[in-house]
């Protein structure tokens, strides 16, 4: 039987939803707790700021509570939560746009031309212990921040939060074809943003990034 991140089954989740809808509001946190990180990350993917992401995550979950009886059960509960969160985050961004986010949000370019990889350095080896390293985390955050919003959202939902292409499309309100196009751009850009770091600037002691450049 398929289980969600908390180890409960779909039936158990539906039962929880029914009980919350029937008035047992104290169960709401239990219902959403397996997804609180995903909700936060979804908000962060749009807002790029911890405090704003937390505020929006809370607002989104309150909104989810008040609309819970309207949840159509053909989609996954987690996808529904993420969809609400993305909408809340976009609303907040629109509200704040004039001040903070103007420079981050370069969504005016709608055409999605081909993206040519910039760097052909070969960095095939990745030691798992390096994942612990703060500097790697920071490099990832920087690389993500360098993406345009529409690419970053797709990349985070699909490749970090592991939503399917269909779920990503649903959460963002775009077509699956758009998800694929944006994903391609986002992945290649992420690679270009990260490869130079691996290729020298913060190479890890004994770890030998192969510095092979074909030209």
């Amino acid at each position, binding site marked *: 039987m398929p289980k969600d991140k908390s180890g409960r089954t779909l039936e158990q989740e539906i039962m929880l939803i029914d009980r919350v809808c029937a008035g047992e509001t104290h169960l709401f946190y239990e219902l959403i707790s397996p997804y*609180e990180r995903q909700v936060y990350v979804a908000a962060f993917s749009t807002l790029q700021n911890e405090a704003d992401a937390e505020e929006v995550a809370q607002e989104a*979950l309150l909104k989810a509570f008040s609309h819970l009886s309207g949840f159509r059960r053909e989609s996954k509960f987690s996808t529904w939560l993420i969809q609400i969160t993305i909408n809340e985050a976009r609303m907040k961004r629109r509200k704040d746009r004039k001040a903070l986010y103007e420079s981050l949000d370069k969504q005016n370019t709608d055409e999605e031309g081909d993206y040519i990889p910039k760097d052909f*350095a070969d960095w095939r080896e990745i030691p798992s212990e390096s994942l612990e390293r703060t500097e790697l985390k920071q490099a990832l955050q920087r690389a993500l921040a360098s993406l345009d919003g529409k690419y970053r959202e797709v990349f985070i939902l699909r490749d970090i939060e592991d939503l399917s292409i269909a779920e990503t499309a649903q959460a963002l309100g775009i077509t699956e074809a758009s998800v694929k196009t944006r994903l391609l751009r986002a992945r290649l850009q992420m690679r270009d943003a990260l490869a130079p770091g691996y290729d020298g600037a913060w190479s890890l002691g004994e770890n030998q990034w192969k510095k092979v450049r074909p030209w």
Partner: protein
Amino acid sequence: MPIIEISCYHVWREISNYIDGEIDPELRRRMEEHFKGCEHCSAVLDGTQNVLRLVGDGRTFELPAGFSDRLKKRLEKDLGG
């Protein structure tokens, strides 16, 4: 059946779909052939897969300290649960 060669340009356009298994078997075969003979494209493929391995381990984003407690308090306050 002979494998028709494809260009690097074509490979880059499909590389993400290739990783996701979202291409037909014929194109997959052509791309695999291309990767065998093209160092640039196989470097791009490996690098892209590395990115996905790096970010997919769930540790890129952690909840801010105290997030769950603050959320619970907010829910208690607003839902009266």
